[in-house]
């Protein structure tokens, strides 16, 4: 069976290494392997059952495998996170985007991904779990030695932050009818306000001194022979996890340490004790709970007798504590006797007994980022949880959660070591605790993204001004604060041009707008454009960590904000360029792909010339996208930036007509980038196509946008818009046409699309805008005939209703006509927006250039075509796609061109 499991093979292959590391002896190793093998076999079995049943029903699966529904759910979560349930459409939370490679191996990645995405809560469990001691914890974070690591992924599997099944969260140990459940504090038996009666403890302890008192009781009763607690290191207020073996040592560890302590990193040393108590924060309790459900490193778990949890709002790295003391109090830790939080304020006690305090919210910013993702205030997974919230000064709130916890508390009472007052759910104390716990549960949910103010729909359909106004300075700053500044930012991997998104947002946060724009432009020279027309919801914002937990950062809005700020202040920020190397590169087409490629190469020091067929630069940005979505001034301004870094641009130059590739070679161009787009409109094959009033979206939009026909007769190019305009199609181009028609005075605009709303490829934001503006959407409707009057002017469109059948090659359900559902739409203008094909003008002029069946240029992944030195990217390679994907192709090709010319 071991042959089926890569994990078992890893352990098998590394047996010597593991035994040498010393965490397991031979017997423990064998026992662990047996556990692991059982668990793996169960999961293999579950996978087979899922395939057979073709559903993921925990109850049914459990019945079939003979395990509890709860255990089944844990296994399902595990498999889901491992990516094994992809075939059922179930994906892992968000790691999959960047760890696909390791998932292919059927093991989890190592835990450094948790650190790099700022999720690490600093519990230290991974250090203990690692069978080969590859992980060490230093200064608020851990280091993973890749050379030692055996890639077993146990650290990730055990980490409380990687995944924590809800079924574990709400589970309780043992069946006990006296267990109550509250939304805010989870499962509990009783809640008390309590105070120690031990005079020694009273002197040193925080609040009620209950933790120390309970541990003392446990020692005295012989329930434990050691406890994992936190003492102080040589540095004042710098905590140090340690095992305490008796009451005397215990007193030294009393008192709260606000600095994060990775206590569980020494859990593996607990083997020398028979029965231990673990005192720790909610995340540590979660870690221990998770271990009880998965066979990860049981030898270190089974000797835990008591789990004592501490309330925790957030923890602070030691360095952050130093920063806090310095910034807020101008103190060094040596001069601080004690720190405390009480009644919404943070107190600092001096050596002489005096104190200073500040509101709690001022210390928030020093908190650990990983704590942002924690919804557990009251250490829900402990046997007994203790904290100050909900009790008056000098008292502690005690939540007894399990029978074990209740017994221990009872013994302390019997020894008269504790004074207690019961707290009922209706009491003020409980309500306070409950409210604070709830506030932690929804911290990030309250952090909503800002809304941009938009022009009123009624007003905006009468003008061509931009619809959203952009973020104000204040909102942009506030939004920048929400960014988590991840160490391994997922947003960057979601961006086709890999902009350092956290980098520019950080500069906005520091109010260094100038640096921010400079920083963006090293990655992307067209931020004002991308900020407006990129489908961020499918790219960077989709990958944003906050997206999986709430609302993602408004990356697009911020990018637009910073680019607009630059223009408003008439700054022309240029990226840093390498000195010129005098190598000439020709860029054919000035659309998004060409502009990006040109900018990238200019920054690398190349002598770049763009050849554009039209009289204006920007390609689809000027002829396709309307003014109200992308003001043409912005395109001009972004092209100006390119000129400033010495990119030359020649208009009215059609390569393949005005100049040939051979001419360009004579002009000493050494490399070529073809980014001519997919400009040839597709027609549907229906009768009446050539009636007057039937036109392509390309013609309609080019007239309005490039030729400014919306300002006819001031501009000479005419445009004809009837009373009822019907647009055929469901993409962004169709949307742009419909909204342009409204603005040109159409009384009614109808959009017919043959699939349903869900399949519509237009950006959601634009669809929403269109709906607000009153466009009449007719889904599942397909034209079959255009009907004209005696002068060949279109007057009606005959359509048929559709229904969705089986999925087609694109994965979308194929629309099929419903028999006898033909009906008439009265209309006097029909705009066809059903896509575009490759324009053959350039490609025909270079017969040796290899094309695919549909006339698009064939390239490798870096844009290299079949001809040496000739590269291509954007729609002419991929067919119609987005602005940013074309830019991504331009950027990639620039890298390949640089490579090519450097090695020439």
């Amino acid at each position: 069976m071991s042959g089926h499991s890569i994990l078992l093979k890893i352990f098998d292959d590394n047996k010597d290494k593991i035994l040498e590391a010393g965490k397991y002896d031979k017997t423990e190793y064998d026992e662990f392997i047996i556990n692991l093998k059982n668990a793996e076999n169960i999961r293999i079995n579950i996978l087979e059952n899922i395939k057979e049943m073709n559903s993921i029903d925990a109850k049914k699966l459990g019945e079939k495998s003979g395990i509890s529904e709860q255990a089944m759910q844990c296994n399902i979560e595990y498999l889901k996170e491992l990516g094994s349930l992809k075939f059922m459409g179930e994906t892992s939370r968000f790691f999959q985007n960047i760890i696909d490679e390791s998932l292919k191996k059927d093991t989890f990645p190592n835990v450094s991904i948790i650190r790099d995405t700022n999720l690490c809560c600093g519990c230290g469990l991974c250090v203990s779990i690692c069978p080969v001691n590859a992980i060490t914890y230093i200064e608020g974070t851990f280091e993973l030695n890749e050379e030692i690591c055996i890639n077993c992924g146990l650290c990730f599997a055990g980490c409380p932050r990687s995944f924590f099944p809800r079924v574990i969260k709400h589970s309780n140990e043992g069946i006990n009818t006296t267990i109550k459940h509250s939304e805010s504090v989870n499962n509990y038996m009783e809640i008390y306000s309590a105070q120690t009666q031990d005079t020694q403890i009273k002197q040193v302890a925080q609040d009620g001194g209950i933790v120390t008192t309970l541990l003392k009781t446990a020692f005295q009763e012989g329930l434990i022979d050691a406890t994992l607690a936190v003492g102080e290191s040589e540095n004042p207020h710098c905590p140090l996890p340690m095992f305490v073996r008796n009451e005397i040592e215990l007193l030294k560890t009393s008192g709260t340490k606000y600095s994060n302590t990775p206590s569980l990193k020494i859990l593996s040393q607990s083997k020398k004790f028979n029965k231990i108590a673990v005192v720790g924060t909610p995340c540590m309790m979660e870690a221990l709970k998770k271990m009880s459900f998965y066979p990860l490193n049981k030898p270190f778990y089974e000797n835990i007798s008591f789990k004592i949890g501490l309330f925790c709002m957030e923890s602070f790295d030691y360095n952050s504590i130093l920063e806090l003391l310095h910034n807020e109090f101008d103190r060094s830790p040596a001069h601080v006797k004690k720190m405390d939080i009480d009644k919404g304020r943070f107190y600092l006690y001096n050596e002489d007994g005096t104190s200073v305090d500040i509101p709690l919210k001022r210390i928030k910013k020093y908190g650990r980022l990983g704590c942002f993702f924690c919804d557990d205030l009251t250490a829900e997974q402990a046997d007994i949880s203790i904290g100050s919230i909900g009790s008056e000064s000098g008292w502690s709130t005690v939540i007894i959660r399990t029978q074990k916890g209740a017994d221990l508390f009872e013994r302390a009472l019997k020894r008269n070591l504790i004074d207690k007052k019961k707290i009922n759910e209706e009491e003020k104390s409980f309500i306070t605790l409950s409210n604070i716990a709830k506030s932690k549960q929804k911290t990030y949910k309250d952090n909503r993204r800002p809304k941009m103010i938009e022009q009123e729909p009624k007003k905006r359909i009468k003008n061509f001004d931009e619809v959203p106004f952009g973020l104000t300075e204040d909102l942009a700053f506030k939004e920048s604060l929400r960014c988590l500044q991840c160490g391994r930012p997922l947003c960057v991997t979601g961006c086709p041009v890999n902009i350092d998104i956290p980098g520019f947002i950080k500069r906005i946060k520091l109010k260094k707008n100038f640096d921010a724009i400079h920083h963006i432009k090293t990655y992307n020279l067209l931020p004002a454009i991308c900020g407006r027309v990129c489908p961020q919801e499918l790219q960077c914002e989709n990958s944003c960590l906050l997206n999986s937990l709430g609302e993602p950062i408004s990356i697009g809005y911020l990018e637009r904000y910073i680019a607009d700020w630059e223009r408003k202040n008439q700054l022309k920020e240029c990226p840093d360029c390498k000195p010129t190397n005098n190598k000439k590169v020709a860029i054919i087409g000035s659309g998004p792909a060409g502009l990006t490629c040109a900018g990238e190469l200019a920054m690398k020091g190349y002598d770049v010339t763009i050849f554009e067929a039209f009289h204006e630069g920007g390609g689809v940005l000027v002829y396709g996208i309307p003014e109200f979505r992308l003001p043409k001034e912005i395109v001009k301004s972004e092209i100006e930036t390119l000129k400033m870094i010495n990119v030359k641009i020649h208009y009215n130059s059609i390569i393949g007509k005005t100049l040939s590739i051979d001419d360009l070679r004579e002009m000493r161009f050494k490399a070529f980038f073809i980014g001519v787009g997919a400009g040839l409109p597709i027609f549907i094959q229906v009768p009446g196509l050539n009636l007057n009033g039937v036109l392509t979206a390309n013609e309609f939009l080019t007239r309005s946008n490039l030729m400014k026909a919306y300002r006819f007769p001031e501009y000479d190019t005419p445009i004809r818009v009837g009373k009822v305009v019907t647009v055929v199609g469901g993409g962004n181009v169709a949307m742009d046409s419909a909204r342009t028609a409204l603005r040109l005075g159409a009384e009614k605009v109808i959009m017919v699309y043959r699939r349903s709303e869900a399949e519509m490829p237009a950006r959601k934001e634009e669809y929403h805008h269109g709906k607000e503006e009153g466009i009449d959407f007719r889904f599942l409707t397909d034209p079959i005939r255009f009907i004209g009057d005696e002068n060949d002017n279109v007057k009606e469109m005959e359509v048929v209703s559709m229904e969705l059948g089986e999925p087609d090659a694109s994965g979308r359900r194929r629309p099929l006509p419903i028999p006898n559902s033909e009906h008439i739409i009265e209309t006097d203008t029909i705009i066809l927006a059903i896509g575009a094909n490759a324009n053959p003008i350039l490609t025909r002029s270079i017969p040796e250039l290899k094309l695919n069946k549909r006339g698009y240029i064939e390239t490798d992944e870096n844009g290299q075509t079949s001809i040496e030195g000739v590269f291509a990217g954007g729609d002419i390679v991929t067919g119609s796609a987005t602005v940013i994907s074309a830019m991504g192709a331009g950027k990639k090709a620039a890298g390949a061109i640089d490579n090519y010319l450097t090695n020439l």
Partner: protein
Amino acid sequence: MFLIKNEYYFNVLKMPYKILKKKDLGSSNMLVEMELEVPLIAKKARAGNFILIRINEKGERIPLTVADYDRNKGTITIVFQIVGKSTKLLSDLNEGNELLDVVGPLGNEIHVKRYENPIIIVGGGVGIAPCYPQAKELKEAGNKIITIIGARNKDLLFWKEKMATVSDEFIVCTDDGSEGRKGVVTDPLKEIIKRETIDHVIAIGPLIMMKFVTLTTNGSGDLPKVKTWVSLNTIMIDGTGMCGGCRFSTLDGEIYFACVDGPDVDGHSVDFDNLLKRSGRFKDQEEESMRCYCQEHGYSQKKEVQ
């Protein structure tokens, strides 16, 4: 030598689009000939090609067929008739003035080779001009060229001598008989087709003229069918196959683009009736544009522009 060539291209790319010569043609005050300094286009231009021009920032993109080219001088010649605001604006420019944009050469060139039988070239009105390079190139290739040119009256005729020099047989007709034969171009066309075997006919002129030429040569009557090329000067924006504004329908209902599939196309396949209706689709706007222009410049619309 290499260096010089390299610099040459960059220099001409920077050149403005200058009007070197301008003259009125005929005596109608409606026809203008211009010579434009556009070395790159002149270098590549062939019979059948057209260019697109834009006069100023607010101007339309206007397609104009190449009526002559001089590769050495780096010029091309255009001939246009004043029909609306844009052509009026263009006619108001003088030698030494510049156009904002000129792009080309666009469209497909004609097939030039030595054909066995003579070729008839029929030019009507302003369409006489683009006949010239076709006749010239075909004549140079050793073909016998029979040219028929026609117009409503003698004031609208031009380039008689120029056309005669590239023709083996040269016939002039006017509707009113003020010069040459009285009658339409299809009259001599019929006679010639009856008289001898013709390889093909090239017809360039108003849509209605081209329609009747194709009806004459389609073999429907007692005359033999003769392959006929017509040159379509439809409404265009980009001229590169992008907008589809120039599209025309064949009699079988297929859609083609004049800009990239033409402008010279098989005349017998074209649905002229549809094309005639399509050509007038911006009539109202064209009139409005002209009215505004005339008001602005104090012209009386009727008097100055026919």
